[in-house]
């Protein structure tokens, strides 16, 4: 059954969209990740214009992250003060990102920038994850708990504007979470991702937040930032397709339920190796498309106004 997407102005099989949403939702249920980094490239692979893919995917991430954020907030796992600073940075970053997106689109460079951003970030994160989890897998029998010290004193901690974050038991410069939020906001608005894959490690290793509040606080930030990105893409670029987003949300919700129960039965290290391989495969495909000689050197673009 085909469904016509009013904003993308094309007809796509509804079951393909539900299937994509379901598959990515399953993976995000298994691994506990957002899945935007898989969904946006997949949408582009099936022919959705990149601008529409990014704009619509933001609202899907909003759907999955907002309910997660509420659940974490109920359990007290959100550092609201930290979250507010991250959101403030995220808002500035996403406004800048959406503006940059429109500019790059007009210049005809948006596709290549999206692909490059994916190759760089997925490649780095995937490789690090693969190394770390492979390392952990081989070491799993000896079970030496590697306890990383929080409060390592980096130059970052000498920055001004220090604020006390009670929930995270930190007394650090607000500029750190502010710039992290800013950077993630740019990535989210250009790549159509939530940015959790970057934010969670940065919160643990750079800011030094306790792991208990990291996931809840990052979901809190992602919810607000993707809401703003949805709005800005809708207003500036007219590229949010609610029909597309709804199909992905429905598929994603169902897939995530199965994914969560499947994930509970698998071992952590194996899961992470698998996720790393998926990330690297997407990165490899995008990277190959960048360097391989295209079938046609010419392409049609939108004329800016």
């Amino acid at each position, binding site marked *: *059954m085909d*469904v016509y997407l009013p904003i993308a102005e094309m007809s796509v099989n509804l079951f393909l969209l539900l299937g994509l949403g379901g598959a990515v939702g399953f993976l995000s249920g298994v691994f506990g990740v957002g899945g935007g980094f898989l969904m946006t490239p997949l949408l582009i692979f099936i022919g959705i214009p990149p601008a529409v893919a990014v704009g619509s995917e933001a609202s899907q991430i909003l759907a999955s992250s907002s309910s997660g954020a509420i659940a974490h907030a109920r359990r007290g796992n959100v550092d609201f003060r930290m979250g507010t600073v991250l959101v403030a940075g995220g808002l500035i970053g996403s406004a800048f990102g959406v503006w940059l997106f429109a500019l790059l689109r007009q210049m005809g460079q948006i596709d290549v920038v999206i692909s490059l951003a994916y190759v760089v970030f997925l490649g780095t994160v995937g490789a690090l994850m693969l190394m770390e989890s492979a390392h952990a897998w081989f070491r799993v029998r000896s079970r030496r708990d590697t306890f990383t010290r929080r409060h390592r004193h980096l130059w970052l901690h000498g920055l001004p504007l220090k604020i006390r974050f009670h929930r995270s038991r930190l007394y650090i410069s607000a500029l750190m979470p502010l710039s992290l939020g800013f950077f993630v906001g740019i990535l989210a608005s250009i790549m159509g991702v939530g940015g959790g894959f970057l934010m969670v490690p940065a919160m643990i290793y750079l800011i030094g937040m306790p792991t208990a509040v990291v996931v809840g606080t990052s979901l809190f930030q992602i919810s607000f930032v993707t*809401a703003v990105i949805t709005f800005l893409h809708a207003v500036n670029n007219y590229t949010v397709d*609610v029909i597309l987003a709804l199909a992905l949300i*429905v598929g994603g919700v169902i897939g995530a339920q199965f994914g969560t129960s499947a994930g509970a039965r698998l071992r952590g290290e194996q899961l992470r190796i698998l996720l790393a391989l998926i990330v690297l495969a997407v990165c490899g495909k995008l990277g190959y498309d960048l360097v391989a000689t295209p079938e046609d050197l010419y392409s*049609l673009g939108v004329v800016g106004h």
Partner: protein
Amino acid sequence: MMPGSARSLARLLVVLALAVLPGGAEPRAQALVADLSHHLIAITTAFVGTNVVLFGTAEGGGDIVVTVHGPRQDQIVRRKARVAGIWINREGLTFRRVPSYYAVASTGALDKIARPDVLARLEIGTDHLRLEPIDATGLTISEITAFQDALVRRKQGQGLYSRKPGQINFIGEELFRTTLVFPANVPPGIYQVQVFELIDGFATDAQRSTLVVSKVGLEADVYDFAQQRAALYGLTAIALAIVSGWLASVIFRRG
């Protein structure tokens, strides 16, 4: 249907065009009448493209050619080049008021029906579309031609330009028909359908009519909402996402 005044205006234009033709044939008064099976293509949620049948009668015994021009818009064509190992868009050339859709059908091979200059004037065939670059400074003729060819090739790849002329069949002596194909990605707007009768290489008669491609129902509502009340649409998209996410968490927590 076309109002009578517009039709007589179209006919007058043909007569004028024929009058300035070097060595043009005397305009003859053969009746060419054509119409479409429908004048509105409605893009609904289940739209997967459609066919429109064009039928008509011609008494002159000449060749019949049908062209369809979609709504015109400036179109940029970009060419990739390898920079530091990766392929990125470098040069771009914008063409003025390019038909977003173009179809042609005829009773025979186009090059046998008329000379290239006649085909070019009437914009018959993808090789004869008027594609005027807006600013081609620094580009050679052959480079411009390469961009023009690429525009047609990419449009054909999208299914929006005819790859080869469609077939017009005569049923009996005077009645003809052809099928025009509109794919799912057909751009909305007003389409100009032109029917020509050509005798001895010159157009002796022509008829114009219009076809409207329009989103209807939910598709139109969503599109108009997104375009005209973008801020409200954005807020609605946010609300929709939050509510559906929350709804899903409630349903599956109980299940």
